[in-house]
């Protein structure tokens, strides 16, 4: 037996450690494999996929599938490629993230520093709204969006994502601001600072980390959403819906390599965010489930 380490009191023998590393590496393989296969096969010509081994590296490397997925692939009835849908997603994600995060920050500030009778109940209602199955709101949402003329439009999707995202952003900021000393806020009040001045001068400057968490969370959720996009997207479908149309289309030869390139394109923005700011991403996931 090796001596107990500092990090964990549990010690293990040499054979056990080899075994542990083996399990961990095999697991890593399990998580990497599907993505590896997608990347490799998106760089092959089609006949190498249908006639060859999916694990093998391309014999002829080609970026043709990527170009095709981006600009000429058949999506639904039009051969526009995924480009316009990628733009739709960006036009939808940016305002949705900005608005829901802004509202969340203000709500969190009110719910922790300007408390009033019944605020916990309101927060509870808001929190529960994060977890509802969205099927329960699909029918009335379709009706309302039609009535106010936002059906099948980007602003309509932005509205939907703000409405169902604000619960989470409020949760983040509320938990974060709760640990900010009330004395500082009270001192500023005594000095005559008003609601907004305190928010701008005292709360916002310390909100950096939680804002990153909130932005990443919202970005990932809105970008990856499929249900709302498919239900209310109309002609302005987001990337996920377009990808699904591309992959499921039953006309013509199934161009697997193009499908893969498309899938990676759809995954790229959130993956990039994950690679650049993975630590915050994990923190956001945790904040949504475990008490900070």
């Amino acid at each position: 037996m090796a001596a107990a380490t500092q990090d964990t009191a549990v010690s293990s023998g040499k054979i056990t450690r080899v075994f542990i590393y083996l399990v961990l590496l095999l697991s890593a393989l399990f998580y990497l494999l599907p993505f590896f296969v997608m990347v490799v096969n998106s760089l092959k010509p089609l006949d190498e996929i249908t006639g060859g081994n999916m694990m093998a590296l391309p014999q002829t490397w080609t970026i043709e599938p990527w170009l095709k997925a981006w600009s000429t692939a058949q999506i639904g009835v039009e051969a526009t490629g995924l480009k316009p849908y990628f733009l739709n997603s960006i036009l939808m994600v940016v305002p949705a993230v900005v608005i829901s995060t802004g509202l969340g920050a203000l709500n969190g500030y009110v719910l922790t520093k300007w408390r009033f009778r019944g605020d916990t109940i309101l927060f509870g209602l808001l929190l529960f709204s994060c977890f509802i199955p969205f099927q329960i709101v699909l029918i009335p949402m379709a009706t309302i969006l039609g009535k106010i003329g936002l059906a099948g439009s980007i602003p309509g999707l932005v509205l939907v994502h703000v409405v169902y995202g604000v619960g989470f952003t409020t949760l983040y900021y509320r938990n974060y601001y709760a640990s900010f000393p009330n004395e500082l806020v009270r001192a500023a009040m005594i000095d005559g600072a008003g609601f907004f001045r305190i928010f701008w001068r005292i709360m916002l400057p310390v909100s950096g980390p939680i804002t990153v968490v909130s932005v990443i969370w919202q970005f990932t959720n809105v970008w990856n959403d499929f249900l709302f996009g498919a239900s209310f997207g109309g002609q302005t479908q987001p990337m996920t819906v377009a990808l699904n149309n591309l992959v499921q289309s039953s006309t013509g030869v199934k161009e697997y390599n193009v499908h893969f390139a498309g899938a990676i394109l759809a995954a790229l923005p959130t993956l990039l965010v994950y690679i650049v700011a993975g630590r915050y991403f994990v923190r956001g996931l945790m904040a949504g489930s475990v008490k900070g």
Partner: protein
Amino acid sequence: MANYASGADFRTKLQGWIPKLVLSPSIAMMLVFVYGFIIYTVYLSFTNSKMLPKYDLIGIDNYVRLWGLSTWWTAVTNLAIFASLYIIICTVIGLTLAILLDQKIRGEGMLRPIYLYPMALSFIVTGTAWKWFLDPGIGLENTMHLWGWESFEFNWIKDRNMAIYTIVIAAVWQTSGFVMAMFLAGLRGIDNEILKAAQIDGASNWQLYRRIVIPMLRPAFLSAFVILAHLAVKSYDLVIALTGGGPGRATELPATFMYSYTFTRNQMGTGAASAVIMLMTIAAIMMPYLYAELKEKP
């Protein structure tokens, strides 16, 4: 309540109202788009709505009809299979990986993000990847044949009885890393002194984990369960991308059932009833949890 030191009467009153004014748009949105809509859908579930909403009540006919439909039973049975396997396997894998990673592993910083990255992908991307990976013609089965294992067979995705398990595989792939992260955070929060004391008392590693560490991870188990259960009930995109509900109706879940009944088959009343049942399932899982969370820190 906020305190005010001084100031004109009007100003003070205004200051008192500003916080509530700031909060009110979100509250109004929530009341209309969440709770108002829930009430509306519940109401529709008691009407004879077909393609468009109708407003005359017909009692519980839709619910009676729903529970008489074999498609609905398939969906509910599938959900039960999917949810239990998904929750159990994710928890086991997540806990195992977390415990192993917690053994002072070299390269932990490399491994953790590898386990977690699928969580950043959309279910549509996951579905696309696995749909192809599991396809007997070009995926895993074909690869094994080319590698010389001729008798290898893995065609679950084309098999009515097995297809639901492919959804479990893909869903586990996507979220088990996240569960690992939750358990790892829990493990890192445990005081090492307790473990050392137990070791001095002669506890083996196995006993240490079984008797002390795992019981102390209770909150992590609870959070993992709640998150996974609610994800399972809401699963929609993954099924659409991976199997499209097929082969036949073999992988239909309540979420896909609701969508197709409401928008494709124009049975809005029945679709609304199924949505209400989904909501009640989620509420049964979430309410006690949220109640406890809010009570703890008022």
